């Protein structure tokens, strides 16, 4: 499964210099064309489309064009105001004041004000939004001294730098007048027909077929958007999606929506651009999670032996192509703000060392060379995970650990791993969200309630780690925070409750006719106000 050299160059260039050469500059001499319909591959339908209630790329890919957040990331990956124009934190970190944009209107014509921000933050982010409930746990109130000022008040210090990195994903605003006093927020019809302030207005959602949004003529950014319409086509079959791209029915397939081989094939075609560019903010690591309730796995020597037994570079080269690289820890290398200079111990492929560690731990090879057996649950989110599970199974057989792979679908995986703890090893993805406090540290912090997906359900408790995590979450000083997360990464790699051996960035396939695309680190989720289609 060789990737083309061109694709390889594109990728390495994208990873190495995503900031230095924004795509936009390449097309700077062209004048944007007004009009056109942009069609998007929509692989997994969601129960609702309001990003104030659900943080996931499946929602942003549609809802993020219709609703807007206070802050987004710019081409250089720095926070830039959208509905907020400026922000300021009090020295104690307990008050953060946002100045809001003037003259912004909801799609139904009502003005956008600080009351919308207050309602969304208190009723949606703090109570319903996944990851928002954790982020805003200590938010006590949002004051609205005037229609264009929102003052966030926290019980404990909230690092401004954390909030600004979290808000691009967890900071979407919903219209108060549509939700307040209309019963259960989760069941509001606007969740499936969102009303926002964004460049595109919701038109229709035909389940199983398509979602359509049209140009918002009253949009606050001058001369935007360029497109007339966006159509998201529901295509659940990955090969069918690739075929529809080739037939010209789809312009864009985001978030690794195609199979690895189809992506490689389209990468060779001049009509398409296949790269990881524009997804730097959606980095993910492949993980191996160890269940500490098994006495073998509670022994650190066994966890290290398992890590040493896998030839990761071989797996990446032969199964993932050039779009993946060796992982170094829970904070991926694209995170310029938090990637530490020293990641702590790494576990290079060394079968002899693995066998020695297992012997040392007292698990000698029995009859037939088997030391013990483990149940491995692969998450069903992607073909790389399925391949990796088989690779783990075969590699561990070489050092005398018999692995039974138990395949399930999404619901089954979460239930067995996070609620029933019915696994020995699990393998899946951890998605990094620009700041470790948003969704990374909960994988390591002890005391997580049973049944909460993507949290520490491994039975691992470590006071040192808990203290690092808690201190970093409320540390207002930027440099000290970064240092604490360095400690966090080193501790994670030393104790190895989860191993993060592979680092990947989502892959995008897009028509070469698209302009101004992939120009921010979370472009697939962004508003596309400057996107246009060349003839």
């Amino acid at each position: 499964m060789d990737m083309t050299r061109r694709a390889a160059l594109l990728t390495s260039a994208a990873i190495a210099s995503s900031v230095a050469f924004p795509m936009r500059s390449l097309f700077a001499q062209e004048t944007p064309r007004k009009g056109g319909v942009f069609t998007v591959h929509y692989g997994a339908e969601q129960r609702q489309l309001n990003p104030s209630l659900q943080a996931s790329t499946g929602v942003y890919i549609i809802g993020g064009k219709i609703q807007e957040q206070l802050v987004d990331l710019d081409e250089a990956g720095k926070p830039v105001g959208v509905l907020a124009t400026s922000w300021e934190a009090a020295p104690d970190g307990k008050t953060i004041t946002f100045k809001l944009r003037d003259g912004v209107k909801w799609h139904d014509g009502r003005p956008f004000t600080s009351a919308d921000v207050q309602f969304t933050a208190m009723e949606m982010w703090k109570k319903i939004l996944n990851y928002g409930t954790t982020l805003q746990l200590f938010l006590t109130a949002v004051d609205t001294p005037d229609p264009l000022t929102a003052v966030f008040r926290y019980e404990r210090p909230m690092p401004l730098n954390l909030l600004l990195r979290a808000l691009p994903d967890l900071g979407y605003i919903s219209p108060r007048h549509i939700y307040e006093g209309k019963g259960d927020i989760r069941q509001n019809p606007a969740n499936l027909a969102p009303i926002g302030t964004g460049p595109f207005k919701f038109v229709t959602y035909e389940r199983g077929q398509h979602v359509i949004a049209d140009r918002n003529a009253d949009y606050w950014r001058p001369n935007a958007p360029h497109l007339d319409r966006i159509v998201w086509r529901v295509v659940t079959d990955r090969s069918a999606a690739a075929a529809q791209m080739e037939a010209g029915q789809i312009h864009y397939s985001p978030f690794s929506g195609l199979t690895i081989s189809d992506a490689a094939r389209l990468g060779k075609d001049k009509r398409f651009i296949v790269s990881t560019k524009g997804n730097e903010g959606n980095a993910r690591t492949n993980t191996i999670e160890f269940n500490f309730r098994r006495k073998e796995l509670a022994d650190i020597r066994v966890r290290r032996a398992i890590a040493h037994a896998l030839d990761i570079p071989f797996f990446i080269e032969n199964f993932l192509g050039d779009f993946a690289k060796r992982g170094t820890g829970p904070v991926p290398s694209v995170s310029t703000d938090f990637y530490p200079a020293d990641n702590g111990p790494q576990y290079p492929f060394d079968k002899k060392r693995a066998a020695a560690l297992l012997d040392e731990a007292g698990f000698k090879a029995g009859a037939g060379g088997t030391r013990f057996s483990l149940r491995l649950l692969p998450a069903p989110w992607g073909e790389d995970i399925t391949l990796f599970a088989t690779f783990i199974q075969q590699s561990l057989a070489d050092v005398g650990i018999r692995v039974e792979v138990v395949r399930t679908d999404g619901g089954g995986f979460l239930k067995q791993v996070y609620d029933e703890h019915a696994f020995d090893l699990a393998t899946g993805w951890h998605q990094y969200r620009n700041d470790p406090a948003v969704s990374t540290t909960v994988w390591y912090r002890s005391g997580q309630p049973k049944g909460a997906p993507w949290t520490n359900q491994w039975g691992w408790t470590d006071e040192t780690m808990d203290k690092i995590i808690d201190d970093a979450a409320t540390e207002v000083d930027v440099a000290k925070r970064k240092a604490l997360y360095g400690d966090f990464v080193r501790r994670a790699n030393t104790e190895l409750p989860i191993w993060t051996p592979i680092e990947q960035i989502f892959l995008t396939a897009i028509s070469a006719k698209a302009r101004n695309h992939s120009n921010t680190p979370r472009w697939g989720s962004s508003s596309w106000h400057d996107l246009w289609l060349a003839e």
Partner: protein
Amino acid sequence: MRILTLAGRRLAASIPTLFLILIGVFVLLQFAPGDTVDALMAQMGGGDAETAKQLRQYYGLDVSAWAQLGNYLWRLVRLDLGFSAIYGKPVATVIAERLPATILLMTASLSLAFFFGLIFGVIAARGVNRWPDTLISTLGLVFYAMPTFWFGLMAIVVFSIYLQWLPAGGFEDITVARTGFARTLDIASHLVLPTLTLALFYMAIYLRIMRGSMLEVLTLDFVRTARAKGMDETRVVVRHVLRNALLPMVTLIGLQAGTMLGGSVVVESVFSLPGLGRLAYESVIQRDLNTLLGIVFVSALLVITVNFIVDLLYARLDPRITTGS
């Protein structure tokens, strides 16, 4: 009158079957780990345990499985299919939205398969062991052995990507608003490839059956008598042989109306059609029990109806098959 009695008796007999099917599906789905809230959490990409508890309460998943089944059957008796957890709409509405695509696909494929199966079967039987028979039988074998999804993808590669004649997927073109005849034509062009994909497999079966039963009937005494009377060959085939050879074909349609729904899952996925098959698949993945049971209920009704029509056709084709004894 006779037909009405037959209809009544058939319907009465199918009600217990329907309930058994529903209970069976319900029990089977209980064996799958996780429920709709787990699936919801997977989709959200995270959430806390408290939210999960609230959602379970909201969807009525906090009571025992038997209580859930009891609730469901009691609602069903009152013709209420319940509320879909994924779609946030009544199940009846969700199914009604998906039914047209599936019915259209199934009717088109079944008619196509039946029509060409019949014609090719007759041609093959008439030229048995000569080149038309060899050609048709070989092609039939190829279509029968070929996986549906593979044929679908190949059809897309040839007709959509290279030739650019037909759309690669979807139910209609949404980038341009069409009405009336133009829209009908547009939908028809979207259905050509999926219909063909689904039909070829069934056509292969019908062709074999038709060929076999034609050959069998051709050897019977009354055919010899007809020929001896000096009747010309076309009339022998059309009036005497065909009518008798059709019986096994008709039986097969009744049996296959059900399997076709299963086959449409693949075709609907490959061609991104908003049909019942894909809805059923997604309901299983999402553990949306109400929708799944609703689909089972509607497809069981569909199969019962088709079988009922087949019985009527049977009586028409062969008067010896009476309704009473």
